[in-house]
């Protein structure tokens, strides 16, 4: 949810419908509520309700459709527009949403995305404005503890925020993480990352050196997604990548029916063919519980 023009539909089409950042310019205002169902990680069915931000629709949700919109909600994502001139009305709407959420789905998790962060160039200013939002939101949200992210469709920050959001929702996350860890240890890989198949969001990542930031993988997400689009334009849909040289081997391959896996081995002693065989064996194993 969010005000008209905040960027809700752009975000949704970028992540779930394979739009490129430039394509989102042609999106018009959302009429009423757009429902989409996305299958994520095989068993998880996400029902995404993209609520139009124009006044007439908002009045509708907050009065007649209250129970329909705010009932059975797992996650509320509120989009703040960094460019807005009417901050107070954004907060007012936010308060109303939370009020309704408290009434109908008090177990829901709230995320606040401060969108269009690319409009502010200076990183210190960005941090300052984000902090401003953080402080005012914490005050207003009482029982919900919102997680706040700064996002933009032009870089990986959007993927980061959404990766975190869906990560929490995957049912057997703990099992997946445990098995992925074991896989990494057994193959002696330097990095192992699991991506969701259609959106290429990072589901989980394990590295031998735990100080590696997730941002690197988000850049990979974005790069592969763009490449996938261009591949489909030449009628040869993308499947896998294999890079081998003296220092490292990198494999990106389809893994289970809903994921892709990225494996990087940096030990020159490990034969790439062995890593490939390991991925194949692990695939059978992971398919049993995913």
């Amino acid at each position: 949810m969010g005000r008209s023009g905040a960027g809700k539909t752009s975000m949704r089409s970028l992540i779930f419908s394979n739009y490129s950042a430039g394509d989102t310019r042609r999106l018009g205002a959302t009429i009423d509520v757009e429902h989409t169902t996305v299958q994520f990680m095989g068993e998880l069915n996400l029902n995404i309700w993209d609520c139009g931000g124009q006044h007439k629709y908002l009045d509708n949700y907050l009065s007649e459709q209250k129970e329909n919109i705010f009932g059975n909600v797992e996650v509320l994502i509120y989009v703040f527009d960094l460019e807005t001139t009417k901050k107070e009305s954004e907060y007012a709407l936010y308060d109303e949403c939370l009020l309704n959420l408290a009434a109908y789905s008090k177990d829901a998790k709230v995320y606040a995305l401060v969108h269009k962060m690319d409009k502010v160039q200076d990183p210190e200013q960005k941090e300052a404005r984000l902090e401003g939002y953080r402080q005012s939101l914490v005050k207003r949200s009482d029982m919900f503890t919102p997680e706040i992210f700064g996002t933009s469709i032009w870089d990986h920050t959007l993927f980061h925020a959404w990766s975190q959001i869906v990560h929490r929702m995957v049912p057997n996350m703990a099992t997946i993480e445990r098995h992925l860890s074991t896989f990494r240890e057994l193959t002696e890989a330097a990095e192992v990352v699991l991506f969701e198949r259609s959106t290429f969001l990072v589901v989980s990542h394990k590295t031998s050196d735990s100080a590696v930031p997730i941002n690197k993988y988000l850049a990979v997400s974005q790069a592969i997604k763009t490449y996938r689009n261009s591949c489909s334009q030449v009628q040869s849909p993308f499947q896998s990548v294999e890079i081998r040289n003296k220092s490292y081997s990198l494999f990106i391959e389809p893994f289970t029916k809903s994921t892709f896996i990225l494996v990087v081995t940096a030990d020159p002693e490990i034969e790439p063919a062995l890593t490939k065989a390991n991925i194949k064996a692990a695939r059978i194993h992971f398919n049993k519980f995913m």
Partner: protein
Amino acid sequence: MGVPRSGKTSLLSVIFDRAQPYDTLGMLPTQQRTSYHMVTGITVYDFPGIDDYSEMQYNTVSASVYEGQHTSLVYVIDSQGDVQTALSSLFSIIRTAQSVNPDIPINIFINKVDGLSEELRQDIQQDIQNRVMKNMTYESMNSTFVQFFLTTIFDESIREALSRVIRRLVPKYSSLENIMNSFCSKSSLDKVFLFDIATKVYLATDSSPTDSQTYMFSCQTLDTIEELSYLCANYVSSDEDSVMQRIVVGMETSAKVFIYQVNSYLTLLCIGSLQFARQDSLLEFNGSKVAKAIRQILPPS
């Protein structure tokens, strides 16, 4: 060469300095001749734009620049600007150039065609082509080596155009082409390019017709691979280690893209579809042999 603000320096900075296309819109006019060095010893000279080449100030550019067997002229025309002035300057240049070097290849880049519809682009190209050819026959200039290209800095067309221009300038081009051809036929590949990694301009390819779409797809593949390499940049200890890099990008159809690194600035990109597993190893073997041959032929730089 070309009239001021036709886009000469901006297209060279997008290719060589990897500038973002939008950043080049505000560039200052070039004051003096600048040179850009490419691998294999090719140098590209960027001349400052002169309004009227028949004027006195043109004499500052000496006619000796046109000399040499391995010299090629590139004239940039702004398709959204005053084409007539550009063309009259072009004819003065050609007159001088051909007096010194009668066989000099002349390449005309019809620049800034982004934003124009396909029909309009074809119309402009046809129009300019007709005018140039008519004038050249009228002045009985040699028009056998004239080529026209529609270009824009916002996609890969400038790189493709530059690739075609330097084709004849690459040392040992015919040997390279022969190697590419036999590589293609023996390994059942559809297309092979020898790319310069830094600029994504291709130095050589096999004799089958090169489709722009294939070229753009290859450039995008190289871009993606570059992004992926950043991920593992901390594992590379020294520059030496990135040689002998082998990359395979697989598609859901049996098509594949193979990339073999030849040396620190050149790479072979092969597109093909392999039906049988046996062909995979054959391709690798051939690929490494071809890479070795290219390293021996081309001078290191």
